[in-house]
């Protein structure tokens, strides 16, 4: 808790330079704009996973549920405001009759992203009352099942394109560089997410989540409203996952129910890996983890194509064996070990 207490000049400078890098990055590295946008969304995924998995100790394997709900939710709002969703998907979003002009596209995004956040948050509230009464392995398996089931259900609903998936609205050419717009929206979301979590973790609510992680029965016996705290954390995380999912759908442009929206085997695992790689239960960890992961992923996919998943698997093993506390956790452990030595 102590770590987020003061905004020292040094810390302000760090934040300002990070912000400058964030704003300048796509202009300096236009070739990597898509990867940078993806990275920002990965940061949100990892942070949101860590709030519940790291800070609260509830390891969820089904957070893709909220990503997918947000992805579909936003796309449906973006299309549904102006056209019949069923007809749009039946025509695979094509033809001349499904054209979005600039105000329509912008309105769709402006309403679709908050709607996605609300849909995912509401789903988390509904499910949380049930799922969060389970602990440990039971919670993990249950959430894994939820994520898989959601993909299969989505693949069976013709209204949203069923197994053939759904296209997000075609951006009008008059709008110019939509990719850049999406990048800055992702940047805004990542910053909002990081600041919100920094604030949450500096309050007694953050302490309560840690208390639940360390000994939930004790927390309950001390009068903390543990169930309400758990559901609240889950709902907040889901809201951010939903908003990130909304942007992700618009970035990749095509929503496949199993490969993109409820992609347990890729995004679902990656967000956990990023949090573990950086250091779970810390604020900086998921951010650092997402950056390192995205670089690794791009390197593997570029230079080890065909073997990229093997390389990724080895990375997971290496993290689990050599850096169980993650990068930030490792640095912190060394720091505190040094401090202990100096004390003696």
């Amino acid at each position, binding site marked *: 808790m102590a770590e987020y207490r003061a905004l020292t000049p040094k810390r302000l400078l760090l934040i300002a330079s990070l912000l400058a890098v964030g704003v300048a990055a796509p202009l300096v590295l236009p070739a990597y704009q898509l990867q940078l946008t993806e990275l920002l969304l990965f940061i949100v995924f990892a942070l949101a996973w860590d709030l519940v998995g790291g800070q609260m100790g509830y390891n969820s394997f089904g957070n893709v549920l909220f990503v997918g709900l947000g992805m579909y939710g936003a796309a449906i709002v973006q299309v549904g405001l102006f056209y019949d969703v069923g007809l749009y998907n039946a025509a695979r979003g094509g033809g001349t009759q499904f054209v979005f002009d600039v105000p329509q596209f912008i309105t769709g995004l402006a309403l679709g992203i908050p709607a996605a956040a609300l849909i995912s948050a509401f789903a988390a509230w509904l499910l949380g009352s049930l799922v969060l009464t389970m602990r440990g392995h039971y919670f993990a398996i249950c959430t894994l099942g939820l994520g898989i089931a959601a993909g299969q259900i989505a693949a069976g609903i013709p209204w949203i394109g069923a197994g053939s998936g759904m296209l997000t609205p075609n951006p009008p050419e008059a709008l110019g560089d939509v990719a850049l717009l999406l990048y800055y929206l992702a940047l805004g979301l990542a910053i909002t997410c990081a600041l919100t979590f920094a604030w949450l973790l500096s309050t007694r609510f953050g302490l309560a989540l840690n208390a639940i992680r*360390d000994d939930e029965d004790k927390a309950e016996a001390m009068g903390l409203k543990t169930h309400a705290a758990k559901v609240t954390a889950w709902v907040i995380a889901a809201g951010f996952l939903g908003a990130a999912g909304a942007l992700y759908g618009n970035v990749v442009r095509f929503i496949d129910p199993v490969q993109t929206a409820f992609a347990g085997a890729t995004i679902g695992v990656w967000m956990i890996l990023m949090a573990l790689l950086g250091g779970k239960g810390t604020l900086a960890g998921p951010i650092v983890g997402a950056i390192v992961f995205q670089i690794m992923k791009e390197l593997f996919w570029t230079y080890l194509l065909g073997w990229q998943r093997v390389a990724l698997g080895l990375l997971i093993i290496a993290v689990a064996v050599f850096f169980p506390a993650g990068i930030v956790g490792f640095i912190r452990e060394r720091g505190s070990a040094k401090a202990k030595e100096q004390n003696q």
Partner: protein
Amino acid sequence: MTAMLQVTDVTKAFGGVVANDAVSISVPQGAIVGLIGPNGSGKTTLFNAITGAQAIDAGSIRFEGQEISRLLTGEIARAGIIRTYQQPRIYGGLSTRDNMLVSASIRRGSSPSLFRRANAKAIAWADELLDFVGLIEKRDILAGDLSFGQQKLLELAMALSNEPRMLLLDEPTAGINPILIDSVIERLKVANSKFGLTLLVIEHNMPVIMDLAQHIYCLAHGSLLADGTPEAIQNDANVLDAYLGAA
């Protein structure tokens, strides 16, 4: 005068083992009451029943006139009964001071106060109690790195910071450095007199409980064997028999 805590005919069985057999005890407000008995006599089971950790099979538990035997653990805690454990339970991943801050009473404010930072007053209150149990120097250390005895003291301070109306202590001096035991007793007495805290204490250390408690209940094989003043208990033939075997 009606008792603050009135346990009447509480029965709890685990399969064929009757851990509590129609046990009745009564704790007046402001008192220090002891609960003794050989290992396996049902003392901790009774604590679990009072704090709602395990549902009872029969009987009644009333706290300040309210029936609490069907309430959930958290509701009982918020009603004002806090317990400590034989094996101290603290939040190992949090600093000692953060353990205090998260344990501070929520009865003073509504739940939205969870979304505030601990203010100077809360930190001062945490530090005052850490000082009270002699752990102020350890405030920035991870609670999981404290020794067993220090964790027991921290757990006591956490319980006090919650400002309960009644505190249930399960062997507060077990595992604590013998040199520190006297100061723990002293602090419990101060908590009782200064904070007006009612105490129900399980203890195996006879000199400790004889010194601390004003009234003692003795359990054996799940039933109440005797109760009375420390002097009366010390001279009770049934109690001596239960501890030492028939002469």
